[in-house]
């Protein structure tokens, strides 16, 4: 295999695939990136057996072929090379020679035959979505997914397509983020899949603001086809909990709040929260919201915000991070906070179909 391409193009694509590469694995080849050259095109592939990422770029291919080499090392070499053309030549015994101006490197790789093949999607159902919109939806929900491995089904985002609607839901049990959008679906198209958090993060990086993404699904796999990038992923197996059931159907009080003002006040107050058990108290009184943090041995913070409120006084305690997460990712000016009582979940809504259910803390 022999090809020439510019350092910038190679670097950009290497950076994109390397975040998929395993950090710990018993299979050495998973630390490698698969490089295939054919017909003036170079294809890079990395996988950790759950998520795979493949990207294509133009290159002057002088001799087609395929090989693999250690991804992180290759990336660190290419990153440091001068801005110029790279001449890359891989011998049959898998030694990659990289030449760039006066720099010469040799890197020992493994045979391409041993690299795991990407899953096939011959009989898959498919649907096309707007890239920018899909990316926004992932961003608005992804942070709420669980990182606790004792409930694997929550370690990802639920994607629901039904009745001409696309719904994304993520929850770790303490809060739940849901975003919904009308889409054109084939009449009989109905699907429900949970994609792992790592795949979500790769998608957010790979998705652009324009164009479409084609999603193909089978019972346990999903593929996301972009212009020059293909991401395939295993799905999280299991039954996603009945999330509709935990969304409060009615509320006692509904308060409109300036999103950025609220975020700034909570962020400041949270500076005094304890690291191990962070909590902020929100005191809703007539036309005033007070945000209070008291941490023994550290100090206390009080922030006051003018609000339009005429309901009963309420005192709610939240984990500040969970409160700030949706405020950070939303872009609207105003959010509505819906409350029932001190122990019932609070709901944050905004004008796009977005909803965030947050369980308050209890003091024992």
């Amino acid at each position, binding site marked *: 295999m022999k090809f020439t391409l510019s350092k910038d193009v190679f670097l950009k694509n290497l950076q994109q695939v390397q975040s998929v590469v395993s950090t710990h694995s018993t299979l050495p080849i998973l630390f490698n990136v698969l490089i295939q050259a054919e017909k003036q095109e170079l294809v890079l592939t990395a996988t950790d057996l759950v998520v795979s990422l493949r990207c294509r770029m133009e290159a002057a291919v002088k001799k087609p072929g395929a090989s693999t080499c250690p991804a992180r090392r290759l990336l660190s070499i290419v990153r440091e090379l001068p801005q110029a053309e790279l001449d890359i030549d891989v011998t049959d015994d898998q030694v990659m020679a990289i030449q760039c101006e006066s720099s010469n490197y040799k890197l020992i790789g493994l045979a391409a035959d041993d690299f795991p093949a990407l899953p096939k999607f011959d009989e898959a159902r498919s649907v096309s979505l707007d890239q920018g919109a899909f990316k926004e939806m992932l961003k608005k929900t992804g942070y709420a997914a669980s990182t606790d491995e004792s409930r694997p089904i929550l370690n990802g985002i639920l994607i629901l397509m039904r009745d001409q609607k696309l719904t994304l839901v993520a929850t770790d049990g*303490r809060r739940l983020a849901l975003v919904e959008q009308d889409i054109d679906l084939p009449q009989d198209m109905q699907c429900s899949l949970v994609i792992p958090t790592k795949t979500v993060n790769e998608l957010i990086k790979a998705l652009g603001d324009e164009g479409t993404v084609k999603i193909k699904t089978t019972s346990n796999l999903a593929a996301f086809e972009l212009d020059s990038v293909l991401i395939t992923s295993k799905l999280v197996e299991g039954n996603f909990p009945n999330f509709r059931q935990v969304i409060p159907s009615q509320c006692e009080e509904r308060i409109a709040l300036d999103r950025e003002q609220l975020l700034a006040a909570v962020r400041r107050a949270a500076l005094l929260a304890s690291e191990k058990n962070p*909590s902020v108290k929100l005191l809703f009184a007539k036309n005033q919201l007070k945000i209070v943090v008291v941490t023994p041995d550290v100090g206390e913070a009080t922030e006051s915000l003018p609000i339009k409120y005429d309901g009963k006084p309420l005192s709610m305690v939240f984990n500040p991070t969970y409160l700030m997460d949706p405020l950070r990712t939303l872009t609207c000016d105003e959010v509505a906070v819906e409350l029932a009582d001190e122990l019932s979940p609070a709901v944050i809504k905004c004008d796009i179909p977005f909803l965030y259910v947050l*369980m308050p*803390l209890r*003091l024992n």
Partner: protein
Amino acid sequence: MDQPFLLYSFPRAILHVDGDAFFASVEMSVNPALKGRPLVTGQERGIIACASYEAKALGIRRGVPLREARRLCPGLVVLPSDYETYSLYSRRMFDIMLRHTPMVEEYSIDEGFADITGLRRIARAPYEAIARRIQQDIRRELDLGVSIGLSLTKTLAKLASKARKPAGLLAVPGRDIHRFLQTLPLDKVWGFGPNTVQLLAKLGLATAFDFASRPEAWAARVLGKTGREIWNELRGVSAHPVLAAEKPAQASLSKGKTFPAPSADPDYIRAALLRNVESAFIKLRRIRLRARKMAVVLRERDYGQQGLETELPRATSATHEALPAVEAMFGRLYRPGVEYRATMIILTRIEPDRVEQPDLFEDRAAIEKFKAVSRAIDEAGTRFGKHAISLGSGLFLRQGPESERSRQPERKTRLLPGETARRRLPIPYLAIRV
């Protein structure tokens, strides 16, 4: 070999005070007639918990089965453990240390660290003399022997106190550390387990000095963060300061009891395990903590043991919320026909129970019910004694095996006026006639 690590003598002065054969010495202090005789505690377990120096001289050590010990020494004095009295003595030992410096860390029932840096002026004495005073006060007031190590770090102080047992006092100033470490094999070093020692031996190391002479980066590479800390501590640079307050948040809590005699009765074994679970959770609630992980261990007669671990869906302090998982583990561990001698429960992933983050999908009504039951258990416990309300399985504890191990310590049977089985005055019962 003769290059010192440090040129100062005591940039920091840390003491390690370690009770000599603590439980046995307390028994002798309470009953001086026993002095000079080979004595062991741990009758209730059938294994030696602590052996006096007289018994140690005959080859009787902690962990030896009682039968074996009696064979070695027919006239052996065997006593059941009296933790109530041991804790009273422990409390007083730490009180004496606290008279000399406010920086005292209670490391365990019979050993503690004290930071006496800067106290020379107020004590009008060198560090070694301050250590000597603490040792003499404990001897005079409690009739207990302790060994004291004085050095720059906790690790060095601990090594120094072990080096001159019993009733020893060894000061290792900074400029002597390298010589002191040359005398110490690796397995004596606090924090090096058998595996680490094997590993270091393979790498050509024999003494603590060999380890401390390697570059810091080497220690960190081979043994990680712990390796770096031990390396620094051994060279007189503190990585673990003396923690004056009570121990920081507990990492685990365990309750285990050896049966008076081995038993194969599933009802009894299960009852003993569940009683341990009840006790563990009562303690957990008393110190306002909750646990997320639990391990159950069954010990067999021949000292083999099996254990299982379960992670709960959420951290809890309610006994009944944890029971189904315990029962499931017992069901998988128990093998009919096998004789067991002890059960144990270990609670880990412990955190403060002040603030609770409820889950959207949990069954709140059930959780509140569990909490209410635990509150009732605790309230009845304070009024009528521990386990006043207990699981029905507790009834099977009565059909337990009987043996000499059932013997109670004297402090439990001879009560002072006004005392009850549950409520005791914080005074030891001295067997001295005046």
